[in-house]
């Protein structure tokens, strides 16, 4: 069992999604296919099965099938479950396996005991095509040392039982009754990010497959992923690689490493960085070109990709890919057609006036204020 419990990223492939979760499986495949990703290892979901004693599992099953009215009660149940999972001591075979994998990682990265990592939940049911579980499970950035990693592995597992995650699961399914072994945990070298963000291989608002959209901020990507800032925003024409629009966001905060807490925290963006775009145009184009190749490798399904630019490496070696997943907004519904069978193809022509973009001002004049002729 112990040799199954922890797996180095270099050994992980897409087919391992059933034990390390799709997020880590895709990352392992990305690394194997030659993209630059942070090195690391995964603690498998199977390990959890062997970890929690039977009575704890019985208690969890009871908590999650108990009737709950309203989020207050759901929160209370989730709190109990979380406390239960967090309080279970890890068995020695699992502690040893994590310590060994971490020693290998410290040596591979050459950073020794100074290595800082991201500890990320990787849910096995995370990527249901209909429901985006983005951000439902916890991630801890800046963790170092085996003891601290073990603590946060437990916290990640426990985060599967937040009221937030549970409300989602009760609504959209996932394991039911909630099983206890469907979360894996990834431990990855923390890329010391100068800038970070996301890239979409289509326009997530309009569904336009002809463009790639990049959003980013200074520092670590959590400020962008959590929606806490108005990020910088670029659209790039996929066929020509030309930057079509570039908008510098009103970025007031960033996610930065705090030596005091030893964690990445959200804090005010230093004055000299506000108003400055966080990427050069070369970097934007490079990210889009790589994003298009990742989409191609993912059988052409539009992708939502997290990237980071390492502070201390020269471009393009500085560009890391942290994870990717199918873009759920559009792939869940009908992907807009760019041509209609049997009729004239629209291609990249201007949009059909019969299918208008939404302009809140025009709409308000016509439908809210009912101004004749508007």
């Amino acid at each position, binding site marked *: 069992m112990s040799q199954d419990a922890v797996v180095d990223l270099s050994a992980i492939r897409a087919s391992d999604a059933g034990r390390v979760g799709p997020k880590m499986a895709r990352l392992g495949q990305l690394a194997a296919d030659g993209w630059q990703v942070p090195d690391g290892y995964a603690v498998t979901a199977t390990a959890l099965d062997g970890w929690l004693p039977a009575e704890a599992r019985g208690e969890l099953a009871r908590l999650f099938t108990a009737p709950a009215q*309203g*989020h*207050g009660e*759901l*929160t209370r149940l*989730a*709190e109990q479950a979380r406390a239960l999972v967090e309080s279970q001591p890890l068995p020695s075979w699992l502690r040893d396996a994590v310590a060994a994998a971490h020693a290998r990682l410290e040596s591979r990265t050459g950073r020794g005991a100074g290595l800082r990592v991201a500890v990320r939940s990787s849910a096995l049911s995370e990527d249901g095509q*209909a*429901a*985006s579980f983005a951000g*439902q499970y916890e991630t801890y950035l800046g963790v170092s040392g085996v003891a601290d990693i073990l603590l946060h592995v437990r916290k990640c597992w426990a985060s599967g039982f*937040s*009221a*937030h*995650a549970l*409300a*989602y699961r009760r*609504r*959209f399914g996932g394991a039911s009754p909630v099983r206890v072994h469907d979360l894996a945990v990834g431990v990855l070298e923390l890329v010391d990010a100068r800038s970070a963000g996301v890239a979409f291989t289509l326009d*997530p*608002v*309009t*569904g336009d497959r002809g463009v790639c959209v990049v959003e980013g901020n200074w520092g670590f990507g959590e400020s962008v992923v959590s929606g806490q800032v*108005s990020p910088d925003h670029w659209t790039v024409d996929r066929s020509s690689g030309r930057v079509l629009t570039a908008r510098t*966001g*009103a970025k*007031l905060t960033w996610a930065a490493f705090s030596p005091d807490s030893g964690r990445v925290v959200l804090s005010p963006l230093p004055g000299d960085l506000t108003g400055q775009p966080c990427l050069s145009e070369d970097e934007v184009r490079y990210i889009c070109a790589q994003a298009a190749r990742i989409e191609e490798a993912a059988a052409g399904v539009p992708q939502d990709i997290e990237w980071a630019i390492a502070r201390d490496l020269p471009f393009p070696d500085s560009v890391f890919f942290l994870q990717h997943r199918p873009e759920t*907004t559009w792939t*869940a*519904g*009908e992907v*807009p057609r760019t041509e209609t069978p049997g009729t004239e193809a629209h291609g990249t022509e201007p949009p059909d006036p019969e*299918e*208008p*973009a*939404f*302009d*809140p*001002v*025009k*709409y*308000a*004049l016509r*439908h*809210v*204020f*009912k*101004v*004749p*002729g*508007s």
Partner: protein
Amino acid sequence: MSGDSPRVFPVDEFVREELYPGYKQPFGSQPFVAGPVRPFSLADNERYWLRDSLHFSEGMVPASIATLDDAQTWGAQLGAEIVGVPPTRGSVNRLAGTHVYIGTIDVDTQWQVQARAARFGQYVSPILADFGSYWAMRAGELQSAYDHFDNLDLHVMSMPEIWTVLKDAYAFHRRAWFIHFEVMYVLTANYLAFYELAEEIGLSGSQVSSFLSGQQTFYSRTDEELWRLAELARTLDVSSALMTGSPADMRSRIAALPHGTTWLGSFDKFLSEFGQRVEETCRIDTPSWAEDPTPALYSVGAFLSKPTGFDFHAARAAAIAERDAQIDAARRALNGANLSRFNQALASNQTANFAWWNEEHNYLIDRRAAIPVRRATLELGTWLASDGEISDPTDLFFLFKAELFDVMSGAGTTSWAELRAMIPDRRAYFEHWRERGPSLPPMLGTIPEVVPDPIMIEVFGLSGQFLETMRGEAGAGAGSSGAPGAAGTAGVTEIRGFPAAKGVVEGVARVITTVGDLHLVEPGEILVCGGTTTEWTPAFGIITACVCDTGGSLTHAAIVSREYGIPCVVGTAIATQVVKTGDRIRVDGQAGTVRVLA
């Protein structure tokens, strides 16, 4: 009852020539776009007037009428004019005694509607395209003014210097209210466009404010801090002093406890960051929390009376999960062009978010803008009292701005002796009307079939349902000369309103008509009130449901109930008349019904 004759609640008994004894408004003294605050006249029977207990529950002293003029009257009219809102020229106010009623002014010619529509697009589009930068600019302007006024040491200034500060403070107050309505009209258009789109593509418009919930505001941070102070009071063993006794000596009783000064240190730090707020909009006569922290101490005491704390993080996380689940469900129901339009409207409203701003702006404008005027007025009053011109600094609350400016400028049409002589009558007049406040009708004038102004519907709750209830009441009460509500609501056990936050709860009702009585609410009760504002928010941590006479999808009670996960029904028109404190009631926040069980 007849469906043909219009329903009228006569304004006749409120008709006056003077706003207060001895005060006739000087003609043309202020550059109003459409009309200043006035007493009712008989012509006002032709239009509808809504009692604005949402913002002003206790009545206005003369000095507050200038700030009301700046705010809901002049500010709204100038905002509507500059933004170019096509159907409305903003709001206008009347006073019944000292109590505020609000009406709207329709734009009634086609050419004006078209001309306003054309400039509306030019004004609003660039702001919506980059709302973040725009609001940062306006908020920065307001904040730098507060930095200026808050840092003035009025105690060391001469009387002419203080008089200058007061003039500056009035000028700033007026500017702040233009900003208020400029932003409000821009954001309302964005919100209502999304609302109408939702209706068009088969969703419900009432869901839209849920799609936009979950944003942290200044007020949710305040509540979180108050809960933290309650926890600290438990830890430091000072809770008994916070839960008993009169607030007047609460501070000294806390200080006498072993860890009392430690707790007061934390409390004062809280006040320095969160204390620049008063209980009601435009009220010159109410202190800020920094001046008199009684409301904050009451909140801490109320939280302590609840056995467990409130997990804000978990509640917000659950509210966000619920919001995202609703958005996902909406998206799954859509495809093609409708999905695309939905996503664009959502994105526009997520960056220019009226549901968020409607809460957040109160701290920068509604509850704060008049504090510099209050401080300078009291300081000036201290000088004038020591000179013997008035007997108490608060006497200045009972002079109109025009009277004060006239006598201070030495223009000499009025003397201090004449003004001083009127103050006792005016104090009595204020007290008389303060007592009458809770029994005033929710609407006066002619109750319309529909109200075209969307703000009156979504913020004030003048929905078809509300108006129908009001018309029913007017019919039932028409034969009696008493308050319209009394005859109309006898025997009513089920009332309907706008379903603002889902869930079904049965419990004991607590009817509260003014924020000053909020401390009477016990944990587990159902709050029944005219309407809530930000000052009511702490009560949401201890109540199990909320019912309001006024309100629509965007009112405070609706937004906060969703954040706290409790059922809420708003816009019932008559809940405070039908329900009595102690009644057992059943609130269905999904159906929008309230039933009196016993």
